[in-house]
């Protein structure tokens, strides 16, 4: 198994009408053994910007700590929060700095930009940005996730429907992956509120 499959992960972010949702699984494993079922993969940068990091768990945590550090400095200098597009460029630059000894993580960035316009993007472990208008996926279950999202996604969904869709896509995809699952975690962000939900999934 490759280094990206050492811990196992599944991440997906979807765009709705003036809102977005980002979801992850909750398993932390060491190859086939499950070590934890409450592992956090989606982190908050500020109220309207979230990043999910799949791949090697230690690199995901380190990457998150570096990004929080850089964002806090930015906040001190600019006296405002970072825009999602700027943040995506920052993540990309940080990953490419380690071009010949990379962080083994694949980020999924989701945020609300100007005029409450939702923004999502994903990157490979070297920082190649992939902007999408509908959904982005990452992790060991990414192929199943692509299939599930492609068939279940509709543009301009309301928050409740978006939550249903992303939950079903995540749960059905991780049910086809040995290395991810054991529950789900969904974050639904609208201009006025943030909802965190934990999904009851198959625990095998």
């Amino acid at each position, binding site marked *: 198994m490759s280094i990206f499959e050492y811990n*196992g992960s599944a991440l997906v972010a979807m765009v709705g009408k003036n809102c977005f949702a980002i979801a992850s699984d909750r398993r932390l494993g060491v190859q*086939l053994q*499950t070590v934890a079922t409450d592992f956090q993969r989606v982190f908050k940068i500020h109220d309207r910007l979230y990043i999910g990091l799949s791949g090697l768990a230690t690199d995901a945590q380190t990457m998150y700590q570096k990004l929080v550090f850089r964002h806090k400095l930015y906040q001190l200098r600019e006296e405002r929060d970072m825009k999602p597009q700027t943040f995506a460029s920052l993540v990309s630059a940080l990953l490419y700095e380690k071009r010949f000894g990379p962080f083994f993580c694949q980020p999924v960035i989701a945020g609300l930009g100007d005029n409450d316009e939702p923004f999502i993007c994903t990157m490979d472990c070297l920082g190649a940005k992939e902007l999408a208008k509908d959904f982005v996926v990452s992790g*060991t279950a990414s192929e199943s996730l692509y299939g599930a999202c492609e068939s279940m996604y509709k543009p301009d969904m309301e928050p409740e429907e978006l939550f249903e869709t992303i939950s079903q896509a995540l749960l059905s995809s991780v*049910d086809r992956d*040995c*290395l991810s699952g054991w529950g789900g975690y969904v974050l639904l962000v609208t201009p006025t509120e943030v909802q965190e939900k934990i999904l*009851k999934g198959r625990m*095998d």
Partner: protein
Amino acid sequence: MLLLLFRLSFLSFFPSLSLSQHFAPTGTKPHQRISVSLNFKQRKQREEKRRMMMKLDTSGLESFSAAVPSAMAAAEDQLFAPPSFDLPAGCADFDKFQMEAKQTLKHAKGTTTLAFIFNQGVIVAADSRASMGGYISSQSVKKIIEINPYMLGTMAGGAADCQFWHRNLGIKCRLHELANKRRISVTGASKLLANILYSYRGMGLSIGTMIAGWDEKGPGLYYVDSEGGRLKGNRFSVGSGSPYAYGVLDNGYRPDMTVDEAHELARRAIYHATFRDGASGGVVSVYHVGPNGWKKLSGDDVSELHYKYYPVQPTPVEHEMVDAPPA
């Protein structure tokens, strides 16, 4: 495509080249050392080149070739190289290629199966997940194979291997019955299978099976694997989830359990293995083998078992917005 045609036409101009050298399939003789034949081929090629170069008069070009020696040599190499094809990938080192091929086919026995003998017979239990690396190919595989009405075999390792050889064992057991007018013992059946698997040792079969049954001597349980091992015992668990199953099984085992207690113990053990092991999951099947043969006791979805054993506790809400009480 064009290159291929060119090479074929080129070949027609040199009938002296022995075709067998270039187009003999490698590995026709199993003991042939590939490295030796390469050198032989290279030597032949060099000889041909030298012979061909002697026909051309390059005296007029000597001064030119002295000034640009490398370019000329390279051009000559290309022009006069006899037609040849690249050896297929992996054949430079055939032994390593064979090892790699066996490795790709090696299924890491991603499963959990267990069986134990107690006073009332034998309990056999297994999960139902088939995985290929990280991908779950099926959640509903029958891993307990019914060899005959009083003997069961479990499947771990390569699914095709287990299914085929268990069916083969069933055939051999029936033939024994017809030839000897009595049922084969569990000892005999497991020995038959073990001998077959031993003869295929090293060829890449992947089988980790338990043969459980009830014969004239009472309950019998044997572990047989594709390395040729055969062990008699009271408790076994096979597969990637076996350490987790052993933990629960060894803790709760008593020889004087009732059938219901033994059933629940086996179910719990497999459930815990599916929770911890990524390659096990799906449905827990539990069978009981008694004096009158085997009987399937249950087939429970593992996820439902989880929420039955550990129901979701309602957690206190951290940030609850309530209307301010009227003053």
